[in-house]
């Protein structure tokens, strides 16, 4: 059956360079000397460390607990000893460090006790919690916690579940090989996701430069006997593997920036994620490894099943890096990030280690002025006008840049790819976005500071007033008491102090005092039974005795409510 496919605007066709790494099957990697497992590997809150240096961990043991509304657990990739829980360099251009668990493998690679869950019988919330604790995140590169996406929309069901096997970035073939070798398992994961989302149909989108993968997935679907699941070959055009672009190609729906795709009846997952969900649900194995492509400036480009935390140079050594290697790029040449060092760890987001050299990825020609030729706009898959956004970004006119939909930019790199003036357009947009975020944060901080200041003023004012009221009430009470006590011997007391303050106190103040006294009485009335309620009998007796003593002494001041601490 031929399905009607839709087009997304723009896109480019860079040289794919995919065949070299697909000749050999997915390889295994010998255990490295140590694993560096960053705790924060997914979108959302930073997981808290659950282990301490010296702890023995088994393979699959949770070492970082999900924290907050959106967070995903992290696990030990093999059995061994925790050597340290300390900041380590991240696989990111920034060169920043993040809290990581450093494990020295014991060589046994022994799993611990693994719990499974039946996704059909267990309540959906429990399955989601289970997947959160299994550390399953989107393996397409966005590393968004999958459990948070496994919720059907408002209607409780979904029209289409899109599975992303497009893999449009040049050089990367990890999804291709996964589909070729593990299609039946991946399909089981898809069936589980479909169940959780109550999805009517499942469309597995695969670029048509991967015929083996399409055939393998189709065979798996046929063998499973499932209906409503279809593997669709889509035209090869970068960035067809962008979630929004793939949804557009398969369903015709355009999910606008800032909207949930479930509002449109669609949800999208990567094929690797589907496989990880299968592993978690079927065997209770958390996400501790993934398929990683090693390609580029190596003698034998290949895919490997890699434990999370494996130092990249340990992995790349297997593929034989050439002598002139000067960089590793995580991801593909279009959107990948250049890494600060060779020994950074493989993380859940590592779909590819692109080994580079100055010869393979030459520096771009010098930047020329923009001639407004519009090539970038023709290539933009988000239908933006990059040359306009560039103009405003350069002028630091961020408001205007946003008016031209800066935040709809998916940073796919198509504009930079085609620009005849060699302008690094995406860099300008990244710069603008981060500037805008920084300014918003500054503004928020300023707003918060102002709020704090205003509240402090208000509090001081209020405290002053309360103090004045309290004082006034106290004074009035004292006067009353004095008046009551001295009612009989009025003649002895000097008449002036008793009578004098009366006319000087204005009626409003008197009313306030009256109100405060009333409040105090009420408080006392409320507080007394409350305290005695919780008090033990002997304490009650003691309190009664104190009350009696107080009454006898005639020192019961109405403004002094009994202390709240009570018993």
């Amino acid at each position: 059956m031929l399905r009607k496919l839709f087009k997304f605007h723009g896109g480019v066709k860079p040289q794919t360079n995919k065949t070299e790494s697909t000749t050999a099957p997915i390889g295994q990697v010998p255990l490295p000397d140590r694993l560096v497992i960053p705790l924060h590997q997914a979108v959302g809150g930073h997981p808290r460390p659950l282990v301490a240096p010296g702890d023995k961990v088994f393979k699959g043991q949770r070492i970082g607990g999900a924290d907050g509304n959106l967070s995903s657990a992290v696990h030990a990739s093999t059995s061994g000893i925790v050597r340290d829980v300390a900041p380590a360099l991240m696989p990111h251009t920034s060169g920043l460090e993040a809290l990581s668990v450093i494990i020295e493998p014991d060589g046994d690679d022994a799993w611990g006790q693994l719990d499974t869950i039946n996704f059909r019988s267990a309540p959906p919330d429990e399955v989601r919690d289970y997947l959160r604790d299994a550390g399953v995140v989107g393996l397409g590169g966005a590393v968004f916690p999958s459990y948070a996406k496994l919720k059907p929309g408002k209607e409780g069901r979904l029209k289409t579940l899109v599975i992303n096997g497009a893999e449009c970035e040049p050089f990367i073939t990890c999804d291709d090989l996964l589909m070729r070798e593990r299609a039946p398992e991946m399909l089981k994961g898809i069936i589980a996701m479909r169940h959780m989302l109550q999805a009517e149909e499942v469309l597995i989108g695969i670029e048509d430069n991967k015929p083996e993968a399409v055939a393998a997935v189709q065979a798996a679907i046929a063998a499973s006997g499932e209906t409503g699941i279809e593997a669709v070959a889509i035209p090869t055009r970068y960035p067809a593997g962008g979630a929004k672009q793939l949804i557009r190609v398969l369903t015709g729906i355009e999910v606008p920036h800032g909207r949930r795709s479930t509002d449109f009846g669609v949800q999208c997952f990567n094929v690797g994620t589907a496989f990880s969900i299968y592993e978690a649900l079927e065997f209770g194995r958390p996400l501790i490894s993934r398929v990683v492509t090693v390609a580029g400036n190596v003698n034998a480009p290949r895919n490997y099943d890699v434990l999370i935390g494996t130092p990249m140079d340990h992995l790349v050594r297997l593929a034989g890096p050439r002598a002139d290697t000067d960089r590793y790029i995580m991801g593909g040449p279009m959107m990948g990030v250049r890494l600060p060092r060779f020994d950074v760890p493989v993380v859940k987001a590592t779909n590819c280690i692109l080994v580079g050299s100055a010869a393979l990825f030459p520096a771009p020609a010098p930047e020329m002025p923009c001639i407004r030729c519009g090539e970038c706009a023709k290539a933009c898959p988000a239908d933006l006008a990059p040359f306009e956004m560039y103009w405003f970004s350069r002028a630091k006119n961020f408001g205007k840049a946003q008016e031209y939909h800066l935040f709809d930019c998916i940073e796919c790199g198509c504009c930079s790819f085609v620009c005849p003036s060699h302008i690094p357009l995406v860099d300008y947009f990244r710069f603008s976005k981060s500037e805008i975020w920084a300014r918003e944060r500054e503004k928020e901080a300023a707003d918060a500071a102002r709020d704090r200041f205003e509240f402090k003023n208000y509090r001081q004012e209020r405290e002053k007033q309360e103090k004045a009221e309290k004082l006034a009430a106290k004074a009035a009470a004292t006067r009353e008491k004095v008046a009551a006590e001295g009612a009989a011997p009025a003649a002895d007391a000097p008449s002036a102090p008793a009578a004098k303050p009366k006319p000087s106190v204005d009626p409003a103040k008197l009313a306030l005092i009256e109100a405060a006294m009333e409040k105090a009485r009420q408080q006392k009335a409320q507080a007394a039974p409350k305290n005695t309620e919780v008090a033990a009998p002997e304490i009650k007796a003691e309190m009664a005795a104190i009350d009696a003593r107080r009454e006898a002494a005639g020192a019961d001041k109405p403004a002094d409510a009994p202390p709240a601490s009570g018993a």
Partner: protein
Amino acid sequence: MINSPFVRKSASVQQVMLKVLLALVPGIAAYVWFFGAGILVQLAIASAAALAGEAAMLAIRGKPKAIFLTDLSAIVTAWLIALTFPPIVPWWLTVTGTLLAVVVVKQLYGGLGQNPFNPAMAAFCLMIVAYPALMSQWPAAGQLDFGTQLKLIFGGLRDVDAITGATPLDALRTALRGATNPDSPFHGLRASQLQDGPAFGMMGGKGGEWVALGYLVGGLWLIQQRIITWHIPAAFCGALFVVAGLMWGLHPDGFASPLFHLASGGAMIGAFFILTDPVSGATTARGKLLFAAGAAVLTFVIRAFGAYPDGVAFATLLMNILVPIIDMKTQAPVFGHKKD
């Protein structure tokens, strides 16, 4: 550290400009065939002046010379000037026009990519205002041999009026205006009869229509090469055809046919090479249509009712003024915000 993307298409400004120059070659070939090799001399003079002006300005502005002198953008401007000016203007006029275009209209506004006006058309307008007589003398096809042309260009021959006439566009307009005047020698003539004259070819001016065809061929190749899009040429030709056709249909004796308008003057070079200048033209799809249609209407109005032989240059500048607002108001909806 260089960020992604790490790969790039092999494209450059130089490549774009080179393709524009190549696309002009069929038109130039027809020009040489019908009007003589004098135009090649003008192309050389203009190119040299453009490079000299560009080099001087780059030096004054402290900009890198090698990269900007070889981007070929100044040569494109120079060629457009040479091809739109009459082929027998004196060399100093070509030089002055080219220097104005490169130094004032382009470099003083910030150089490549920064000029709000099309440099070649701005130069044309300035020159036609400053030297209306010299800028209105067009030899007929095959009228002048190369030697005479050289003498005219380098000042050996002064008496221009004696040997050249106005463009067919100009001639036709003068004649048509005379047709309603009882004192005019053209009294009572119809447009169709006028076009039977020796200066006219099948559609436009004799020879000129073949040059226009050359521009059309080169322009279509530019579309095929994805250097320009179809919007501007289609909208310009379409709108010019419709407006001219409407007037001609209503009053066939008073106006030239729409095909004559398309095949004459700067219509074709304007549609494919001048209005399509990305720097000074509209950039959105709808904006390009508006921009070119507006230029076509203005071109017709200037041709039919104005005082200048052709209207493309003034129409281009007038529409250049409107480009910022046209672009701003015609931004296409972005992904996810389209109304299907």
